[in-house]
């Protein structure tokens, strides 16, 4: 589903990712753990094709880095659900409108399907009574729930979560992680990036440690036979 092959990324002189290779399959849960600046967010941005690799290839489903037009990039992003640490909600729209926007962008559903889909997503995150509130009226935990509802409303194959509990206190953080586990349990693949070991432990899944742009710990290629995986790693 997602494959990185010898991917490097430079920002000017700085090498952010240093020839990393890893893969994840459908329905899997992968957690990247590493310090700030280790390269976690860059991995997510490479998956969404917000940035292009300096070397190597990133493949997401049938989309391969380096060859995507703006239209294809938009199409790729519509197959993903993305959750950011800072929520990235539109403050001039209600909770309902924020989530409905993702449905309209997906363009797969008619007008009559927008309301039921949004209400269903809101029920899943437990915010059905906040649908007419604006983001400014919500707590940080509620905002992240809205972001999660927006990410899942189109039933994407993969959910990318970049430090989803970074701005939350313990109780809200636990609730968000429970919610993400529940969503993953319903079939979506989940890729989570965090600096916190406790979050990685709580969410479960396959853990990959990253430090200074290199994967230092974890099984980068679990679904291949051991010999093939080693060959793959040897080549990276």
């Amino acid at each position, binding site marked *: 589903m997602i494959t990185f092959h010898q991917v490097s990324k430079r920002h000017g002189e700085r090498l952010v990712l240093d020839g990393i290779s890893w893969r994840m399959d459908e329905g899997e849960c992968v957690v990247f753990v590493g310090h700030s600046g280790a390269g976690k967010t860059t991995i997510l941005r490479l998956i*969404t094709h*917000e*940035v292009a690799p300096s070397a190597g290839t990133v493949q997401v489903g049938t989309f391969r880095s380096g060859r995507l037009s*703006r*239209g294809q990039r*938009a*199409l*790729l*992003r*519509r*197959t*993903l659900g*993305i959750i950011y640490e800072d929520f*990235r*909600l*539109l403050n*001039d729209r209600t909770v309902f409108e924020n989530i409905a*926007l*993702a449905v*309209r*962008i*997906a*363009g797969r559903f008619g*007008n009559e399907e927008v309301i039921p889909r949004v209400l269903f997503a809101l029920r899943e995150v437990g915010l059905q009574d906040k649908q007419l509130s604006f983001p400014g009226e919500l707590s940080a935990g509620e905002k992240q729930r809205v972001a999660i509802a*927006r990410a899942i409303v189109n039933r994407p194959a993969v959910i990318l979560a970049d430090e989803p509990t970074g701005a939350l206190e313990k109780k809200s953080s636990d609730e968000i992680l429970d919610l993400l586990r529940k969503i993953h349990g319903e079939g979506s693949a989940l890729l989570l990036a965090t600096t916190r070991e406790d979050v990685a432990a709580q969410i479960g899944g396959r853990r990959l440690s990253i430090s200074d742009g290199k994967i230092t710990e974890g099984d980068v290629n679990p679904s291949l036979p051991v010999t093939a995986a080693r060959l793959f790693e040897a080549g990276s």
Partner: protein
Amino acid sequence: MRWFYFQEAWRSFSHHRGLATTAILSLTAALTVAGVFVLLAHNARITMRMMGDRREMVIYLKDEVSRDEREALMTRLHQLYGEVTYVSKEQAWIDFSDQIGDPQLLESVEGNPLPASLHIKLKPELLNYSAMEQAARQLEQFPEVEDVRFGGEWVKRLDNVGNAIERGAIVVGVLVAIGMVFVLYNTIRLTVLARRPQVEIMSRLGATDRFVATPFILEALLQALISTLLALGVVFAFQQAFVARVVPIAFMPWSWVGLFAGSVLFLAWIAAVLALSRVLRAVGA
């Protein structure tokens, strides 16, 4: 979905009222200038047409031309140049006498020295200096013709005035069009930049350029439409004031109003597409 685009356009419009108002006022000013010029050009055209209709060519006939020769000539001239009217020697004398008005002056003239003439009301395509001059040269070749007069200098001046108005209208039109594209281009650019977070979020969620751009284009069209209506209102008020205080002038015909509004909307669309094609690449990574 289409309704959604209109809602988004209205949302952007109402959230950036200051920017929208500035753009509308700037556009209204530019379009008013253009509208007043179009109004003047239209009235100048009416005046020119009225004056042009009076343009005629006078052919003085030799005294020895017989009735049959004259009628044959009239038929030929009618086919070639336009409507022909015969003025006999006698009629010419009566007209001349009416113009002079003093019978004592006329008594000193022996006989009737005035020639018979043919007055040609030229076909519209011949109502310009070069065509009239060419026609005059051709007519002088006819054996029945003594002399040809068409007021060359006057026609030349009329043509020059007409051409100057036409050229002026084109220059003003082009200047206003450039100004309008510039104003709208920058307004849309500023609007997109003001809504940069929204555009970025939409882009991250997988919105296509078309999805992001359509509301902005509708917003530009809305601004252009409001400006056009305001400018036409100002031009109408100007025309009414002119009619009341100076001389009666006509307002633009509906076809001109439609063409004016259509051109403005087309230019607004061009400006918006140009602005968005650049700014979306910069904003929506």
